[in-house]
């Protein structure tokens, strides 16, 4: 159908011609449109308290204490169950967040502007590994780290970014792909490149050497620091492709630990939801599948723009880390995702695959036709709140989301 091909060409062109730039770090209250006190944004499609998984509930009680909306975790849980807080998906507020994906008014947000189209997207700062809120952590150590990010680190990072006039992200991704990152489960190179780009400006703008030293060490000690930047970048790029009549290109894939949700350009902001699947992967010593929480987080936004599982061929080390097979198998994931996408990126290429461009623009028609579900690289959270990451693996987007989306899309197109 020619109208669909034209609409998809436009959607993919908007993704590929996006120019995402990290421009600032600002309190969510000041930059996220419509965000208010008492509102808690979470990863994935809409969900109510009763259906939330353990880590999500743990993060919500923690963030309520952090914001001063509850005296302690028990009080927060009672208030959440009583309906005292408003829960909304990050995606409804131009935001994304990894794993539980907590976004509230006083958190410092990475601000990425898509300079081609003028839209902005936001993501909180990556907290590091171990016991962190994105995996449901909510004790004093977790909350103290969030306060430090809010009071010291966020302002220091934002000052450096502004001093530099922003950080252009497309080049960093291009270089990261040549250095073995796929920007979901491996961000070692891009985190290092970001530190290299911002450290001089952080020193230049620092007012307190102790804060500077701790801030530099924080970035240097977190291989996944760049993930949240990549996610805000991805959101800014796919938002530019939203709402194109006749387009069957996916604009969001996201999970809340209970449901997996997909949104498609040509069907507006409707979610197509199915039960989320369990990741298959490798577990850290002492943990097993019995400990794992179902798949969770807005981080599949990176697959939506051709990175993560779609760029596995760039990152043989990740194929081993997530239990996806040998180094030579890594390229097969990328080739398979080429079967369900509309284009190859001309700028983000994989040297080990003869500079193949990463597969970009998931077409729901191709997903349903081939039966190939999008492959997502993911961290695995413990099913109990507060323990943290217990492994890493690969998860498939549920095919049911795409069959639902196809039916709704056909209806919109007047096809039955």
């Amino acid at each position, binding site marked *: *159908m020619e109208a*669909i*091909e034209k609409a998809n060409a436009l959607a993919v062109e908007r993704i590929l011609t996006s120019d995402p730039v990290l421009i600032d770090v600002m309190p969510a209250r000041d930059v996220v449109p419509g965000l208010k006190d008492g509102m808690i944004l979470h990863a994935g499609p809409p969900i109510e308290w009763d259906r939330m998984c353990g880590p999500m509930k743990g993060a919500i009680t923690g963030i309520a204490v952090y914001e001063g909306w509850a005296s302690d975790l028990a009080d927060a849980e009672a208030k959440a169950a009583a309906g005292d807080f408003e829960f909304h998906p990050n995606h409804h507020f131009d935001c994304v967040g990894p794993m539980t994906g907590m976004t509230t008014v006083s958190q410092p947000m990475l601000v990425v502007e898509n300079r081609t189209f003028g839209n902005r997207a936001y993501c909180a700062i990556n907290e590091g590994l171990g016991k962190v809120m994105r995996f449901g952590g909510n004790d004093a150590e977790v909350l103290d780290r969030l306060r430090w990010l809010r009071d010291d680190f966020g302002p220091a990072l934002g000052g450096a970014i502004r001093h530099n006039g922003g950080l252009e992200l497309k080049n960093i991704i291009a270089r990261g792909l040549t250095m073995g990152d796929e920007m979901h489960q491996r961000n070692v190179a891009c985190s290092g490149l970001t530190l290299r780009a911002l450290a001089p400006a952080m020193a230049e703008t620092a007012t307190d050497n102790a804060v500077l030293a701790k801030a530099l060490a924080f970035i240097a000690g977190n291989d996944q620091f760049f993930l949240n930047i990549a996610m805000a970048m991805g959101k800014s790029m796919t938002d530019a492709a939203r709402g194109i009549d006749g387009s069957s290109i996916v604009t969001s894939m996201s999970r809340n630990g209970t449901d997996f949700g997909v949104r498609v350009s040509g069907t507006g902001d409707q979610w197509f939801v199915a039960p989320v699947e369990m990741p298959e992967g490798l577990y850290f010593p002492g943990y097993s599948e019995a400990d794992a929480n179902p798949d969770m987080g807005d981080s599949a936004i990176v697959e939506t723009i051709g990175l993560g599982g779609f760029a596995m061929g760039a990152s043989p080390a990740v194929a081993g880390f997530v239990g996806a097979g040998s180094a030579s198998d890594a390229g097969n994931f990328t080739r398979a995702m080429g079967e369900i996408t509309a284009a190859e990126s001309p700028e983000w290429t994989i040297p080990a695959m003869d500079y193949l461009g990463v597969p970009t623009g998931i077409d729901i028609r*191709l997903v*349903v036709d081939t*039966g190939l579900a999008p492959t997502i690289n993911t961290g695995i959270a413990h099913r109990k709140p507060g323990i943290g990451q217990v492994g890493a693996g690969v998860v498939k987007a549920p095919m049911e989301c795409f*069959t639902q989306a*196809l039916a709704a899309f*056909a209806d919109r197109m007047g*096809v039955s």
Partner: protein
Amino acid sequence: MSDAIKDLLAGPVKVVNIGLEGFEAELSAQDVEVVQVDWSPPAGGDPKLADLLSKLGA
């Protein structure tokens, strides 16, 4: 049986198996060289979805 068929079966068999992996596995177990092609019916064989896909130009 035609000469062509006789010639085909006289030498080592060359097999390309499309779809069901069980056939490939059985032949491989008997040391027959097989090239496996991953294939499944459009839309997993669901006729309604296949019809929609056809109308949507997939």
